[in-house]
Structures are given as C-alpha cells and as structure tokens.
C-alpha cells in the first residue's frame, strides 16, 4: 500500500517493510542500478556500499524531514543535493578511516552515492512530506532493501566468479571460476535472473489469488 502525496502516514511495520519488499528500490523500482551493477562483484563490497548508502539515506531523510517546512519549493532540489553531498563526503572520509583497501575497492562509487536516485527520490517523494519518525523508519527500510538487493547480487557473483563468499573458499579447488560473473556483464546476468525470479513469484501469487477467492465464494 503506497502513501498518497501530502498525506501524513502513521508509523506501522509497513512503513519499514515496504522498502524491503513491495517497494524494494532495486528489484521493484529499479532505481540506483549503477552502483548495484558496478560494486557487487564481491560480498564485502556489496555490504559496504549498502551500509554507506543506508547511512546517507537515513541521515539525509532525517534532515530533509526536519527542515521540510523551512525549505522553499523553488530551491528544494538544490537543498536536497547539498544535504546528500554533505553526508556522502562524510561517509567518504569515514570509509578511508576504516579501511583503505575497502575504499580502493569501492573506487568512485562512494562519491557517486550523491547521484543515487533512491536517495533523492526518498527525499522528494517521502521525507519532504512526512514527520521525522516516519521518514527515518521509511529510510531505514529502503536502505535495508537496497543492502539486501546488493547482497543478493554480491554473494551470487562472488560465489560463481571466484568460488568464495566473503573471501572464504566455498567450492573446491577444482572449481573453475566464471570470470564473467565478476566482470560488468555478470552484474546484468545476475540482476536479470533475480528479476525473473521475483516476477515469477509475483505472477504465481496473482494466479493463485483469484482461484482462492473463487473457492471461498
């Protein structure tokens, strides 16, 4: 159930869970696909990117929601971008402080979180209209949904492309890695496979629903 514009939402479990499933930013809305395809060649990169994006999403949604009455609508996009860029810069320094190897692995994609449409989309479509509590919960849900989606791609790509998960050997030494999975085309293959699976599940549910209704009436 989506929220109508300009309608204040009561915080329910759904506020959080929508981002995980019904409105999953990657698998349902197909937003922010650039980092999804680019940095998911290993599980660790996927986790780091997901957490970094979640932090920026939650922090910027909080600030946008707090300032929603003070931001004139003519300058709202500019304001959102400044807010998002600030948090992205902070994440950039923090990741360098945590691990330089991780920072090098993620490359330019940390800075490119600024341009991630999931975050700007949340600020514009949700946080700018809702109270802080709802905005934070919703941002956490979306961030978790984004992180899970990255993990779905990252684990499969690392497993097939290198035979490992988080660096631990899963397949035996005889396993010949599918290098293509680590390369950019692998991102498209795996994303396509996941979308196929979710679409199949959705259609199966829809097929079952009328049957069930017919049985009860």
């Amino acid at each position, binding site marked *: 159930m989506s929220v109508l514009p300009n309608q204040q939402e009561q915080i329910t479990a759904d506020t959080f869970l929508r981002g995980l499933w019904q409105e999953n930013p990657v698998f349902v809305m197909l937003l922010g696909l650039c980092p999804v395809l680019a940095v998911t*060649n290993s599980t660790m990169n996927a986790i780091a990117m997901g957490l970094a994006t979640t932090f920026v999403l939650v922090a910027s949604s909080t600030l946008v929601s707090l*300032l929603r009455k*003070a*931001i*004139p*609508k*003519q*300058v709202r996009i*500019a*304001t959102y971008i*400044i*807010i998002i*860029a*600030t*948090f992205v*810069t*902070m994440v950039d*320094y*923090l990741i*360098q*402080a945590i*691990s*330089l190897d991780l920072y*090098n692995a993620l*490359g330019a994609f940390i800075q490119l979180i600024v341009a991630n449409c999931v975050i700007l989309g949340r600020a514009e479509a949700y946080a700018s209209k809702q109270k802080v509590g709802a905005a934070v919960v919703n941002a956490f849900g979306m961030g978790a949904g984004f992180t899970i989606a990255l993990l779905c791609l990252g684990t499969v790509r690392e497993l097939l*492309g290198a035979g490992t998960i988080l660096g631990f050997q899963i397949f035996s030494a005889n396993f010949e*890695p599918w*290098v293509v999975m*680590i*390369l950019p085309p692998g991102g498209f293959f795996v994303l396509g496979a996941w979308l196929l699976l979710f679409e199949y599940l959705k259609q199966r549910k829809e097929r079952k629903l009328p049957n069930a209704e017919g049985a009860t009436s």
Partner: protein
Amino acid sequence: MSSTDQAQLQNPLQPQTPSFAMLRTLGGIAMLAGFLVVMVFQWTKPIIEENKRIAIEKAIFKVVPGAASRKNFVLSAAGLFPAETPDAQGETIYAAYDANGELQGVALEAAATGYQDVIRILYGYSPACQCVTGIKVLKMAETPGLGYKIAFDPAFLENFVALDGKLNNDKSGLENNIVAVKHGNKSQPWQVDSISGATISSKAIARMINDSGQRMFPLIAKHLSEMQGGRE
C-alpha cells in the same frame, strides 16, 4: 479564476516565495554542510594518514625482504635529500634497513598505463645484487581474472624476486632493458615472463620498471653511501 491566478498563469516564473527565504535556506544549509564536513575531516585526518603510513610501510617491507625500518628520501639529478627537506624536488624513495641498520634495499614507485587505467606499483631494488627484489601493485583497474593477476599470480611475481637491473659500464643506465616476453619464453634474467591473456598488463609492469630503473638506478648507485649512513 481570480486575478492573481491569472497573473501567475501569465508569468509562471514570478516568485511566490521571497528571495530572502531561499537565500536563508541555501545559505544555512551550506553552512551546516561545511561545518559537518570539516568536523569529520578533522576527526578522520590523523586516522587516514596513519592508515596510509601503515599501508606504505607494509608494501615497502614486502618488496624489500629483510627490511625492518625505513627512511624516506627525495632523489633527483640534483642530489639526495631527506624527505623532510623543504623545497626538495624529485621522486620520493624509501630506503629500507634491516634490524642491524644495514641498507637492504630501496623501494621506489613506478607507474604506466595498463589495459584500462594507470597502474601504480611499488618495487624494491637491491643495490647489492643490482636487481629488483619484489613488486606490489598499489593501484590498478585491470580486468578481474586477467590483467588483475599481475598483483597475485605467484608465477608472475616470481619474475621480480631477482630481476636483473645491472648498470652499464659508464653507470648512466641499465645494461639490458627490462622487457616483457611472451609467456614461457623467458631466457634472460632481465626478462619478464608475461601472463598469458594479460600481455598488456604484463608489458606495462616491465615498461614502468625499465623507465624508472633507467632513471633512478644510476642515481641510487651514486648516492649509495649517503643512504647507507642515512639511517636513524
């Protein structure tokens, strides 16, 4: 339709919000942004510098076997200066010493264009055997599974355990150019056996070591005694 609505329709760009409100918002947000960024920058700066120092130190000790301490110098045709010297121009080199303070080797940085982007490496040079003693890739964007192997492939790294870097007779350059040869065709100690499927990346490594060596090895030989006595 009221007259104000009509006026807005005729001139949709007419501001409905006073400019002051926009300036106040943008200015206020920008100040807050500046404050937050500077705060995090100040807080993480020493940690990031420490991380970088550890990363460089680890790389130096890896490419110069037996090293236990190091000292940074700036080396150019003008001479050898400790890295702390103000206005010293030239390349930064890292002299590495063993536990007894004997010079074990020198770590140098080199870079060349690989398959996709510039590859940057740190490599060790031993003046005693006049050879390269190890390499460590600092930065690359090579293809995973192919060019990427230059950093990890044990057989390829074996090339750089004692890669010949002898100076010529008048000590102005190398006696033999360090070159990459086709996989399995290495016959001379100054040749680098390429990884099959990653020829461009392998050649880039050989080329950058050769360029750097032609320029730096004679200078290192010239200032060897200063480095030997330069330890702390």
